């Protein structure tokens, strides 16, 4: 081999190596059990796509939301795949911040996605995010305690029944609270629960002209019921309790009932963590006979920001992570009970899943019962069951949540909290140009 041939060969090898260099996808995600599990199962994807490497940025939900919003609004281009909630998808898609998912592949079977979840991620017939796991809310209750109270939990209880059962189950001397509900202030904490519950009472955030409705009797009925029930049968310091605090209380056997995310079902029935794993029953979120249940609809989704330079590789990953094939991988390695729930119809038709997850039917029924486009009894100008899909809602929801949390803590009356909520919301909606 002469020198010329050697140099030519070396240069070619360098050029080829340059072209063959792996593309690195940066994926922003939250530290939820299902998301963390996905990070350990990506070998299947990288083996099939050796030219794509994956880097993860895991952050707490609110930090992630702020971080990703900054990056996407300034076109920073730091992320190739985003984990975002059902709240953000329609807003960000409208802003042109997300790429439509049009190359998910022939095997993807978009029609298998649960219709309620899919509709929240679709704009102008284009899917802007693929659901990784979905959830609604439902009643989780202690079968032994309700039996002891001499009651039988119906599959679809009313708030009247829940109130009666909670008060009968309460045994403060034994450390048992009849009911545990969210009280911690935040648009995704107490306001997720209270907004969804208010739908069952016929309340709504805004009328068709975006006029706030906190001065209406439906909201007063909702908040009166909530505060009174929590005072009679809730845990001490409930105004500081969010999902995690209530989960800890329920797992320690300190709650007769807990109305919260369906995803909690796998936690409370896991004997490794829960002292009441074999005593838990499930029911639909309660109603008041007006035709709407207080169950929300949420999904964590994977989306691709418009600023990415690696859209094709990113869509390949999104397709893999939200596919039926991924569910099979989780089932094979971690068992069917650990499969991310709430996204695909086929999962709920799977006999093995039904056997492994006793909460499967109730989860599906809860998700199907939620209607983000018609969340309440009366018509609304917005989309969203437990939130209002407008950019102002994060701030508004948290401010109103602080007022309602203060009412629960006894720092102000229900009437004062509602009056202030009406005042603040009217001011902000006028400022935002919604009220002319």
């Amino acid at each position, binding site marked *: 081999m002469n020198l010329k041939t050697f140099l030519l060969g070396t240069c070619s090898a360098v050029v080829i190596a340059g072209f063959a260099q792996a593309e690195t996808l940066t994926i922003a995600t*939250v530290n939820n059990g299902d998301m963390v599990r996905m990070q350990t199962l990506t070998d299947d994807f990288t083996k099939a796509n050796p030219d794509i490497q994956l880097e993860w940025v895991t952050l*707490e939900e609110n930090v992630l939301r*702020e971080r990703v919003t*900054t990056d996407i609004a300034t076109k920073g281009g730091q992320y190739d795949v985003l984990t975002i909630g059902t709240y953000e998808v329609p807003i960000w898609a409208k802003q042109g911040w997300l790429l439509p998912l049009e190359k998910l592949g022939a095997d993807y079977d978009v029609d298998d996605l649960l219709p309620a979840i899919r509709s929240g991620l679709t704009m102008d017939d284009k899917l802007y995010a693929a659901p990784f796991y979905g959830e609604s809310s439902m009643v989780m209750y202690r079968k032994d305690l309700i039996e002891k109270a001499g009651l039988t939990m119906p599959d679809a209880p009313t708030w009247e029944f829940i109130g009666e059962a909670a008060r009968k189950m309460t045994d403060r001397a034994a450390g048992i609270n009849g009911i545990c509900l969210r009280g911690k202030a935040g648009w995704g904490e107490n306001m997720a629960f209270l907004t969804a519950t208010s739908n069952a009472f016929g309340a709504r955030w805004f009328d068709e002209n975006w006029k706030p409705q906190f001065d209406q009797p439906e909201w007063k009925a909702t908040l009166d019921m909530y505060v009174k029930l929590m005072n009679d049968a809730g845990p001490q310091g409930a105004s500081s309790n*969010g999902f*995690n605090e209530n989960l800890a209380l329920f797992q320690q056997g300190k709650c007769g009932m807990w109305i919260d995310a369906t995803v909690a079902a796998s936690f409370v029935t896991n004997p*490794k*963590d829960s002292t009441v794993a074999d005593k838990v029953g499930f029911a639909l979120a309660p109603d008041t006979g007006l035709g709407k249940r207080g169950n929300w609809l949420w999904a964590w989704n994977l989306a691709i920001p418009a600023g990415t330079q690696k859209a094709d590789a990113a869509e390949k990953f999104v397709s893999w992570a939200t596919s039926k094939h991924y569910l099979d991988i989780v089932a094979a390695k971690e068992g069917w009970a650990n499969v991310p729930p709430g996204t695909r119809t086929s999962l709920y038709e799977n006999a093995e899943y039904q056997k492994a997850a006793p909460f499967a039917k109730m989860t599906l029924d809860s998700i199907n019962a939620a209607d983000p486009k018609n969340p309440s009894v009366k018509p609304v100008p917005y989309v969203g069951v437990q939130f209002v899909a407008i950019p102002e809602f994060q701030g508004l929801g948290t401010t109103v949540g602080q007022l309602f949390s203060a009412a629960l803590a006894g720092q102000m009356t229900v009437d004062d909290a509602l009056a202030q909520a009406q005042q603040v919301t009217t001011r902000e909606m006028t400022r935002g140009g919604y009220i002319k």
Partner: protein
Amino acid sequence: MARAVSTRKTVVVTIFAWIVALIIFFPILYTIITSFKSETEAIQGFSLIPSGTVESYGAVQAQSNYFKFFLNSVVLSLGSTFLALLISVPAAWSMAFSPTAKTKDILMWMLSTKMMPAVAVLVPIYLIFRDFGLLDSRIGLTVMLTMINLPIVIWMLYTYFREIPGEILEAARMDGASLWGEIFYVLTPMAVPGIASTMLLNIILAWNEAFWTIRLTTTNAAPLTAFIASFSSPQGLFWAKLSAASTLAIAPILIMGWFSQKQLVRGLTFGAVK
């Protein structure tokens, strides 16, 4: 009698100081204790006796590469401290030994920048970083941390330098020392305790800085603050893992603080009593 009263007073003050110190240290202690519990134990209410399991540490390391974050923390805190000293020693010298009518105003202005909420300048800073290609880079973050801590560093050094008699520097000048010779060979050796404590404080501040280090990084330059943030979860009880991650993140700075506490206290109280 006077001696007895004095001893009693010392004992009371000592006990009080210990109680205050324990109250301040307790959250850190409880974090360390929780890190040696299982997740089930961690949620079972208050207990000072852990089972001693190290499963959370294993899980934390399996989920994230601790050493990559650790290395970034070391580089960022040492780098920003070095850079801050390089700028602040001459700056403090000029303010301490060649003050003008506006020196006090400049010092106050510098300090006032610390009072501005960081989030107010998030978008402009993010855009600058984006345009200069500094997002998720150690260089960019080192400069950022230097800028954040510079007002405090200059203030501290200014206070120490003021304690040094100007006549010594004048004598050095009479002996023919150049400006830089005066600063580096005469002033700096005399202010070593002050510079050392300033350096230590700056390292601690840079190590603990969580607003910018989380918002301007993704994977390459992310330090231990981002490592801790990745274990906080809104849905799921991972308290033992979060405690293990926190313990791993604070351990190096805690150990450094412990070994250098004499130097730190000496520096912080330098010039406090005349």
